[in-house]
């Protein structure tokens, strides 16, 4: 049922931006900073997230594999993430980032909470495969925000932001920031909670108030976002024209990219009931309280998008054919 969040705040040095364009909510940051010591307790506050992680990873691998096959390549299913540049926005203690890095992705985890980044680095350092001293390590953490990364020219093959969207103040600005960080032809993965009575009942009433599995204050109902709203956003989304909402230092090359990529919206729908398979997918994440595990709902399963869900959208390639 719930998933705690990953948060997202501006580092002090970016403080001047907070008043203007930040989607980060300072209260959210301090909430998660206070819980940061519990990130790696698999039976504690973040148990739901630990259990959800394999299911999220399964979805990510599945979509990348499908996309690669659509592109006409035949990748080794075990190495579909290998050598991709992946950004994990709101990485928290690094649950998802570690998994991505183990599968060979050059992973950058960012979080607005310095404490979270500290925990994530410390945890990775105990794992010989991930430790920064290891020659195989492909995992980096940085205390920063997505907006701040936009100021650099780098874009990513895959951008993930799991259980973050329901914690940000300005979701539209946050989404466009994430979108701009994706390379043309790259992938954006989001998971969050829908704004439905069921979601309220499960993630706030049960999880926080009754079962106390999640700290009160973790979730705010009004911040929840419906899948249809995400789909609508990417149907109408156009990259910000030249100077992005955040003063941009990006090079002209990247600007050109975004101009060409605007040739078509990310999602082109021809009917209300059909989602183009090669552009977008949304699947419910269902928690089974009896077995204490999550699973990915089958496509289009009735009612499966009423609570937690995961969303994938692919950025159009340059000069769309």
């Amino acid at each position: 049922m719930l998933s705690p969040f990953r948060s997202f705040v501006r580092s002090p040095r970016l403080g001047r931006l907070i008043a203007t364009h930040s989607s980060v909510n300072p209260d959210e940051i301090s909430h998660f900073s206070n819980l940061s010591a519990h990130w790696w307790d698999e039976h504690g506050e973040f148990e739901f997230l630990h259990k959800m992680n394999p299911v999220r990873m399964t979805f990510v691998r599945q979509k990348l594999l499908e996309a690669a096959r659509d592109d006409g390549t035949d990748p080794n299913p075990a190495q579909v993430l290998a050598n991709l540049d992946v950004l994990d926005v709101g990485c928290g203690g690094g649950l998802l980032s570690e998994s991505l890095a183990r599968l060979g992705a050059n992973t950058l985890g960012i979080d607005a909470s310095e404490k979270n980044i500290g925990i994530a680095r410390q945890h990775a350092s105990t794992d010989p495969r991930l430790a920064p001293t290891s020659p195989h390590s492909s995992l980096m953490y940085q205390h920063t925000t997505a907006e701040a990364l936009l100021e650099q020219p780098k874009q990513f093959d895959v951008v993930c932001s799991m259980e973050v969207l329901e914690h940000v103040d300005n979701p539209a600005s946050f989404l466009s920031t994430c979108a701009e960080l994706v390379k043309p032809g790259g992938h954006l993965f989001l998971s969050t909670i829908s704004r439905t009575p069921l979601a309220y009942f499960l993630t706030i009433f049960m999880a926080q108030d009754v079962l106390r599995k999640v700290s009160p204050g973790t979730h705010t109902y009004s911040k929840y976002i419906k899948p249809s709203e995400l789909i609508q956003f990417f149907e109408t989304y156009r990259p910000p024209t030249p100077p992005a909402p955040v003063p941009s230092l990006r090079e002209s090359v990247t600007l050109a990219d975004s101009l060409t990529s605007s040739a078509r919206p990310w999602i082109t729908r021809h009917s209300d009931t059909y989602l183009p398979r090669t552009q977008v997918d949304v699947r419910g994440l269902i928690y089974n309280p009896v077995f204490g595990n999550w699973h990915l709902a089958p496509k289009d399963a009735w009612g499966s998008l009423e609570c937690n869900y995961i969303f994938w959208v692919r950025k159009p390639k340059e000069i769309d054919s």
Partner: protein
Amino acid sequence: MLACRRLARPAFSRIRSLSTTTEGALTHENCDVVVVGGGPVGLALAGALSSSRVVGDNLRIALVEAGDLDKIRAWQLPSEKYSNRVSSLTNTSYAFLNDIGAWSYVQHERTCPVEHMDVWDGISDARISFDAAEIGTVSQNEGMARLTENLNLQRGLLHLLEKAPGVDLIHRTKVTSVTRESEGHGAWPIVNLDNGRRLRARLLVGADGFNSPVRAYAQIPSFGWSYDTQGVVATLIHRPRSAYEGPNTTAYQRFLPTGPIAFLPLSPTVSSLVWSTRPHIAQTLQGCDPSVLACMINAAFRLPQVSLQYLYNRISEAQATSTPLTPQQVQEEILWRETSHGIDRHSAMSASAAMGDAPIGIPPVNSELVPPLVTSIQAGSIASFPLRFNHTESYLGEGAGARTVLVGDAAHTIHPLAGQGLNLGLGDVEALAKCIENAILQGSDVGSYTALQPYARERYLTNHTIMAAIDKLHKLYTTDFEPVVWARSTGLEVVNELDSLKAAIMMTAGADGGKSGITAGWDMVTKGVETLDSAVKVARAVGGGIGGIVGTGVQTLIQRVSERTRA
């Protein structure tokens, strides 16, 4: 030659140099999976992991064993001699060993299919029999199960590991202690070896048997009891079955009130014994001359309980006075008891013909209802071990014992009457290897509780169901309480008619290699045993009169199942 030998293990030295880290004054090597225990279960896990491409590309695996694995790798016996530790591998286990490529390294001609099984009650003589041919899916020569020497299997697994390197086999080395690297969630265990090496384990696997040091480190409690029963094993030599009889591929088991005695075929003239009995009787039997033991084995499959009890006492008293009975004296005693029971000397039920000039030619009527007469016992093959029931509360370590997992006897120990011990262990291994592979594909930390939970979830209840059923069977059949015996016999006879039911039970023996049916079958067994329990209570209440026939029928099923699976 020397150079070749050096080259043969390049993986190890490379791994060691790459991953050796200094921690204070001590250095350790990082490993992803450390398996403690080089028995069949530990080796099967190493073999299953090394046979998976995904695992091989991602994990460094080490196996630690105190014994000498080179001796097992070089193990050889003349074709007529057999080791006394034999397991009956179900078709499910066989399919798994085949999948990981191990079976091709097992010496096939030293294994024997069980094509038929005969089980009967020592008190009522009620009998059930099972035939592999009744299961449509079984192909010729496959049988319901396959009797295999543990050493043959271990040697095969070692050869598999040789062909698929990647596992660091550390043998002739003891684990001196397991320590925790640090405080905090998910701290890594460090395995300290008596050769000075220290292995830092992402995942520590306890395949280290009943007294598992890994379990002790993980502080996983277990519950169980000792059965006050000793299992006596031996390799038996007998005459081949005649041309008028079937081949020696029938497993026999007779439930005596002191415990079941089982005869497991290995070759036309050699079979294996597992005789569960009271510790004092086991001591008596082990203390006598092997040829006296041979006589007693023949008698135990044939004579009524009262005479067996007399013989145990007679031998025991003679031993106490340091005038042990000679084989001739025991034969005379047996002959005398047979006469008083009205057993014809030339019938199949006579145990006294064994030593004498046994008739070659047309065998007596019903000679296939009992095993062939044992003529001698392979030298040095008699041994015994205590039987117990034990199940841990969990298969996964938590908190201070994080990053540990138990498989095989370290997690569960059962009565051998159904021959399921090794099969349960191999089932664990198959599930754990699959769980580890899935975790790798999801980028999970294979030592984490979350990654291992599917393994525990898949195995715990399955094992518990089977163990409970076997435990209940043992208790049911070691009583001579009249109403229970009556219920037993009725149940057996009833069930024998129910061919369809029999087929269902046979499937639980793993005959179809399918998995889902197995637990269902054992569930049925457990329920049947429970119903039997209540039937027995009814029988008791009405003075042994009209019990619940239906209930006993079910119970019979149970027994059958157990028998089946023994093979």
